[in-house]
């Protein structure tokens, strides 16, 4: 079996193992879940040995006929873009399992169901990045919402059912618009030869300008809801507030990346003309996201919503980098997706542990944690610094690349975007000050520090943040060929630097 397909299927084998496990033995269930996610990680790392670096195009491809009448295939393959996101996924899932070891205990359903949902979700997440058939992508894009719906609604806090429903309705609405566009794309391909859903074949289609615009919008709105981009973001804070930390990490760290990934993979390469038409508007939206998300983050009192709003700001940067359509911008945006995954994971992990200990999500209930729980406080501090893109931590590299990439084409946008960095410093430093420093809030006196399991879960994230901050070259080396190929497909070249200006 193809190594990529194996990576997709492995979590499902874990699900089978879970089905066989007795419901009461939660320890065994967690071990099975952890084991299968670790095996999946190993399998995805093995892909690196087969992957030819510096080569363009999809690798480790495999294709089997699935739905013959419409020429739909189970077609998977990875390029640099997909590879880094798959690795992000397979690294984060075991971390989520270890980090949120007890988060399923108070759910509506059993612990067993929780880990079954997590593993099914992992299959979908790897599959969605690996799919090279638009139909397959769409199917997974929609199907992956179902486990998330049950994860939020079944194991979350507060008004979890409403948050889950809102999340699902938003996403499905976008998905249906995308379905219309997928159908439209297929019909165009029928008119120009044998109908196909293969993303490479589709990128060679000649689509009239008007049609491109509509199809582009169908895809883009779906991805903008997923990403989430202003004004399609309103589902996110509720979902983040209600979900367990583990679910939040997967939703914000990986699932939302499907939106930005889709913009690059489909919007840019399939509809180059329309991309150029809409790019200025989208850049405006992304700037609004950056600033608006940051301002709302400053005003939040709820720790989870605060992290969610910082993400809206960061997704603004990612979209800005994508639609600046320069190679630095695109590479930076892709790298940003990975870095944001890790930095959000760190924030939600430590934030989740703080909430678990304090039994409150309100920022003002914390305070003075630095003195009693130094390790936890330092971890949160590092996670925060990575969110504000401190040089030396990974987010800095990507944010810098995005801004440079944007500046060469849209200088004004880059300057406005830079404001986002300043605001980021504000919301993170205020948060750090209120939670970690200052007088000890009553009720926090006996807070225990991180235990070994938690340190063990967090360590890889911190290592990734620091490593990618100081030495991002390997990641960029993987992403670069994909970026140049996408630039070629999108029919854009980097603007020539204006000498002497």
């Amino acid at each position: 079996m193809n190594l990529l397909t194996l990576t997709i299927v492995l979590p499902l084998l874990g699900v089978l193992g879970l089905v066989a496990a007795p419901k009461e033995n939660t320890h065994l269930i967690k071990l099975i879940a952890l084991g299968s996610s670790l095996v999946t990680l190993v399998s995805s790392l093995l892909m690196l040995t087969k992957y030819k670096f510096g080569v363009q195009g999809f690798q480790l491809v495999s294709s089997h006929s699935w739905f013959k009448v419409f020429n739909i295939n189970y077609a998977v393959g990875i390029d640099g873009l997909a590879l880094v996101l798959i690795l992000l996924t397979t690294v984060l899932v075991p971390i989520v399992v270890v980090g949120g070891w007890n988060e399923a205990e108070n759910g509506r359903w059993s612990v067993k169901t929780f880990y079954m949902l997590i593993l099914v979700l992992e299959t979908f997440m790897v599959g969605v990045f690996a799919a090279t058939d638009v139909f397959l992508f769409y199917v997974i894009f929609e199907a992956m919402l179902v486990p998330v719906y049950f994860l939020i609604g079944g194991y979350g806090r507060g008004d979890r059912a409403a948050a889950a429903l809102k999340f699902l309705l938003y996403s499905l609405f976008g998905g249906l618009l995308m379905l219309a566009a997928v159908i439209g794309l297929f019909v165009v391909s029928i008119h120009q030869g044998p109908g196909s859903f293969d993303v490479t074949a589709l990128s060679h289609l000649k689509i009239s300008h008007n049609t491109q615009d509509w199809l582009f919008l169908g895809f883009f709105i779906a991805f903008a809801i997923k990403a989430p981009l202003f004004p399609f973001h309103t589902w996110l804070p509720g979902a983040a507030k209600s979900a367990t930390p583990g679910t939040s990490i997967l939703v914000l760290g990986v699932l939302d990346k499907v939106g930005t990934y889709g913009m690059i993979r489909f919007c840019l390469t399939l509809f180059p003309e329309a991309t150029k038409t809409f790019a200025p508007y989208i850049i405006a939206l992304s700037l609004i996201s950056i600033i608006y998300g940051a301002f709302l983050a400053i005003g939040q009192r709820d720790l989870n919503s605060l992290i969610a709003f910082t993400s809206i700001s960061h997704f603004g940067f990612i979209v800005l980098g994508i639609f600046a359509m320069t190679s630095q911008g695109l590479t930076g945006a892709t790298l940003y997706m990975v870095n944001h995954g890790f930095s959000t994971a760190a924030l939600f992990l430590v934030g989740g542990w703080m909430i678990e200990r304090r039994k409150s999500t309100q920022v003002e209930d914390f305070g003075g944690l630095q003195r009693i729980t130094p390790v936890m406080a330092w971890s949160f501090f590092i996670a925060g610094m990575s969110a504000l893109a401190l040089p030396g931590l990974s987010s800095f590299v990507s944010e810098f690349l995005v801004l440079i990439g944007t500046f060469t084409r849209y200088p004004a946008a880059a300057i406005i975007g830079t404001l986002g960095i300043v605001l980021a410093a504000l919301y993170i430093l205020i948060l750090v000050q209120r939670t970690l420093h200052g007088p000890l809030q009553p009720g926090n006196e006996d807070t225990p520090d991180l235990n070994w399991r938690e340190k063990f879960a967090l360590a890889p994230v911190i290592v990734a943040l620091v490593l990618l901050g100081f030495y991002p070259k390997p990641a960029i080396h993987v992403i670069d060929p994909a970026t140049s190929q996408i630039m070629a497909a999108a029919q854009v070249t980097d603007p020539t630097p204006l000498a002497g200006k």
Partner: protein
Amino acid sequence: MLTTPSLDYNLLAPILIVLGGALLGVFVEGFVGRAYRARIQIIIALVTTATAFCWVISIHNLVSQTAAVDSVSIDGGGLFMQGAILALAFVALLFFTQDDHFAPQASALPGSQEEAAAVLAGVQMTEIYPLVLFAISGMLLFPVAHDLITLFVALEVLSIPLYIITGLARRRRLLSQEAALKYFLLGAYSSAFFLFGGALLYGFSGSLSLAMIRNAAAVPGANHIFLLLGIVLMSVGLLFKVGAVPFHSWTPDVYQGAPTAVTGFMAACTKVAAFGAMFRIFIVGFAAVQNDWRPVFVAISIVTMAGGAIAAISQRDVKRTLAYSSITHAGFLMAGIIALSKAGLTSMMFYLVAYGFATIGAFGIVTLVRDSTGEVNDLNRWAGLAKKSPGVATAFALFLLSFGGIPLTAGFIAKFSIFTAAYASGNIAIVVVGVLSSAIALFFYLRVILIMFFKEPTDDTVTVAIPSFLVTTGITICFVITLVLGVYPNLLFNLANTMTTLVP
């Protein structure tokens, strides 16, 4: 000189078998003791439909125009519909077997002493089974009928038994009888429209045969006024049967009033028969004047999709919700006719099967959710059902997701293919309204899931009856088909794709 008409019994056998089974059932009513009737009737009904289904399979690649003196055309399209009706009916009949769906004595007034006596005697109307078989025979004839008289006869044969069994619910009998009367009166009107339309078409073409009508319509420069009037009136009759807006108002009442097992049967099988007939009539008879009727159909399809979805939002009764959802689906299915292409027919066939099994399964589950007085249809009382019986709630959720067209269910493939057919034929408006209506429709499907899974059970939450073996089998069949056709649609789609022949 008198020539004997040629009847090709081999090709008509599925219809005749079912009719024979129905007649046998009538005899059983007359000659078998009450204690054994129900058991014998269900065996007859199941064996009959199964035999007829096997017969359809054995003749599935035959084509004939002259099976019954030119009035029945046997071809791939017709046989697929027949097979679908029989398969759906077989599964639907499994849900009839629970012994408390039907009125003990239909002739006794609700609440009267006679009724109480009949309840005490523990009897139940077993005439249901022959009536259902009669209805099935009409349904089998409807999509293969090739002339106007046969069409009308088939329409009546399928409708009249349905009017009767609608009124036979054991509980809430007044509601049931009201629904039956409403269904009968409106149905009679729509049949009259259908018949009048047929008369005008005969006046236009001088023939009852669809082929002759097509030939007459294709003559350039002819005066089409009677043709168009005939099409309009005939469409009223057909659109009534499928429950398209604005001829839909009976649907919620009848779905709610009829015994739930019957509702499932009616919703699934009538749709197959009516859409099968509609496709044949419009593609064989009226394709020449498609520019005249197509825009109207586009408009009706759009208001049906949107109207059903919007009206469903405020429903609190699970049967009414499913009724409005069936209206929405009628709108989606019309997209297949409007596409007027082979792809349209293929996807419509697939859609009918996918929708049919999900519908029968969903109504089958509704029959199980009860309190001490009988079925509970109030959605608010379904709260927390998943906690009490996760299996039933999961199955119901899957059927709802299939109605909503979520990937990896049969409903998604159906929706995708029918929208593709409509888009490819240039009807992009239908696709756009279709996806928007789907989004609205999803809201109420998801709300039901939310109520079942995420609401805490209250004190008066209902119980789920322990299903009998046959009922469990029925739900399992529907569940597996809905899932398998969603994951591996080739199984049915390739078959449908090869069975799109329609004799001219």
